[in-house]
């Protein structure tokens, strides 16, 4: 009997294996959960694009066999914004790390959430800049060590779900790589959600974060999640800060409706011009709105 192929063989670029992630790193698990969520969502894979920034998680785009874009550090969200608005039929997923999305890319995150661009942003949070050797990141818990805070971190980190919530994200969830099935379900929900959805995935980084903080291996971190995760759906996101080696509140925190950027644009223009306006992204480029350019010309 021949061994059957791995079920993800077709959606992973296995010709690029072995992948770059360290032993007991959880990014691969997050990828599997994402694919499971994608399958559950029923969205045709052809419509799905993955955009990543830079870092360990930035490499995710390169391993998933969808149209995928590995962009510059911090700019995955604006690139994805252009991709989505360039062709609104696409389902655009930003899959990147905490440093990429929230330090160098933080401004883009808050604005995309504010505008409610129809994107799914998945943040793999491993609490440090791993690819570059374990420096302080915007999510490094107070007291944790990193190469650039060798005596422990004193620099207040972000509470990511609270940030996403405050900026207007319509769907906010947090899981760890241990909660694979719930994570997959959440990712499926996020993909189906119209608007800016955000899922934080707490992920073990054994080589750098765990080692530098003497937390053992990635398996030890998984055991830590096992013992210390508290599922609290609908939790007030102000209460879900992560403290160093303290319990982690996980769950689906926000699920609400809000008009997306493009819907707001189309609705507004229809209010202004009525039927003469062809909604963007729904019909071709022709639009019969009367020319008012002579007046504009003098402007």
């Amino acid at each position, binding site marked *: 009997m021949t061994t059957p192929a791995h079920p993800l063989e077709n959606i992973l*670029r296995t010709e*690029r294996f072995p992948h770059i992630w360290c032993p007991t790193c959880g990014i691969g698990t997050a990828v599997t959960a994402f694919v499971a969520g994608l399958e559950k969502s029923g969205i045709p894979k*052809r*419509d799905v*694009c993955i*955009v990543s920034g830079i870092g360990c998680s930035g490499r995710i*785009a*390169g391993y998933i*066999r*969808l*149209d*995928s*874009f*590995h*962009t*510059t550090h*911090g*700019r995955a*969200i*604006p*690139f*994805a*914004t*252009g*991709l*989505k*608005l*360039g*062709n609104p*039929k*696409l389902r655009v997923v930003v899959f990147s790390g905490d440093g990429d999305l929230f330090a160098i890319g933080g*401004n*883009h995150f808050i*604005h995309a959430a504010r505008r409610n661009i129809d994107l799914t942003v998945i943040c793999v949070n491993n609490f440090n800049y791993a690819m570059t050797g374990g420096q302080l990141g915007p999510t490094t818990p107070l007291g944790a060590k990193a190469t650039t805070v060798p005596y422990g971190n004193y620099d207040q980190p972000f509470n990511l779900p609270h940030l996403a919530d405050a900026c207007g994200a319509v769907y906010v969830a947090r899981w760890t790589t241990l909660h694979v099935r719930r994570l997959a379900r959440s990712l499926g929900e996020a993909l189906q959600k119209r608007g800016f959805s955000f899922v934080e995935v707490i992920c073990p980084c054994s080589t750098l974060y765990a080692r530098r903080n003497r937390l053992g291996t990635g398996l030890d971190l998984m055991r830590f999640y096992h013992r210390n995760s508290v599922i609290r759906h609908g939790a007030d996101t102000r209460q879900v800060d992560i403290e160093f080696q303290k319990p982690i509140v996980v769950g689906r925190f926000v699920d609400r409706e809000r008009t997306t*950027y493009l819907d707001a*644009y189309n609705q507004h*223009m229809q209010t202004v*011009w009525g039927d003469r*306006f*062809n909604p*963007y*992204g729904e*019909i*071709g*480029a*022709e*639009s019969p*709105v009367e*020319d008012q*350019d002579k007046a*504009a*010309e003098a402007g």
Partner: protein
Amino acid sequence: MERADPAGVLTGAHFIDGDIACAEGALAAGCRFFAGYPITPSTEVAERIAARFPKVGGLFIQMEDELASMAAILGAAWAGSKSMTVTSGPGFSLMMENIGLGLMTETPCVVVDVQRGGPSTGLPTLPGQGDMMQARWGSHGDYEIIALCPNSPQECFDLTIEAFNLSEQYRLPVLLMMDECVGHMTERVVIGEAERIRISPRRYYDGPPGSYHPFRPQSDLVPEMARAGEGHNFHVTGLTHDERGYPDVTWQTQEKCVRRLVDKIRRNADRIIQCESDDLEEAEVVVVSYGITSRVALPAVSQAREAGCRVGQLRLITVWPFPDRLIRELASRVKAFVVPEINYGQISLEVERCAAGAARTLLVPHGGGWVHDPEQILRAIEEAAA
């Protein structure tokens, strides 16, 4: 070549400034996605686009900054749109990183820099030509770029279309290097019938899904594009990559990848470069200029001729790639080049490089905030001829 979509073409004679002409050029070229951030003196382009796009099925988005604007137009290009952003010096600096991504991923789009005086915030409302070397070398790493310099509102229209066409033909971000003077100067701009405006269509791959290689070159070294969402499952990265777009960080792949980025422009340079010249055959002195300075130089050239100098004039419409060969050839038979520019020596260095000692190069610098007094240029011509 295709014909322009009449929906975007404002056929007729207009009295408009360079910024508005640039916006109309983009519309005529088929640009239907614009991401930008307001910055003087380029804002009027964005404003015009914002007013016009909803009527032609385009989408304008004001982003949070220029980093985002540049990233967004790259994304939109891969979604199938013709896309553009517009900025000035400080924003141009912020765009550099993702201009590099556009070059590495060979993404067609247009970036307009309406130059003002710098460095830093400098002179927001006054002209400069100090970004010319930044246009060439501003993003890190090695590459070739295309940059065009209009000297009138009419050319702001024409060259914006040309910039889009070149971006499609050579699959890269093309820079339109305007300046505040040209951007804010109002003149007659004639926009022809749509069917007379030639548009280079995107060169799409039409093979079966799964077989597309985003970086496999055609005979002119330019690879074909694909749109996201058509089942090709392609990968695009800013890392050094092979023809499939897969990262491969080795010197061998770097050599192949970057050499082609450079060669696709260098080997096609003769087809890309446009210059305007006058009386080069008999010239002893050649005035080399670009953008607004090329207009300001003309009265000086006329006066010098009246005074008996044999002066030729060479206007660079395409500044990058630089017309190396032409300058080298001229250097072998003229006494000197006079290069007026609104900076302290950028393109003059290129002229000097190509002249390689065979002819003198006289820079006529200007710090920015105004254009040259033609008198300054005249004096330099006289000095060069002496």
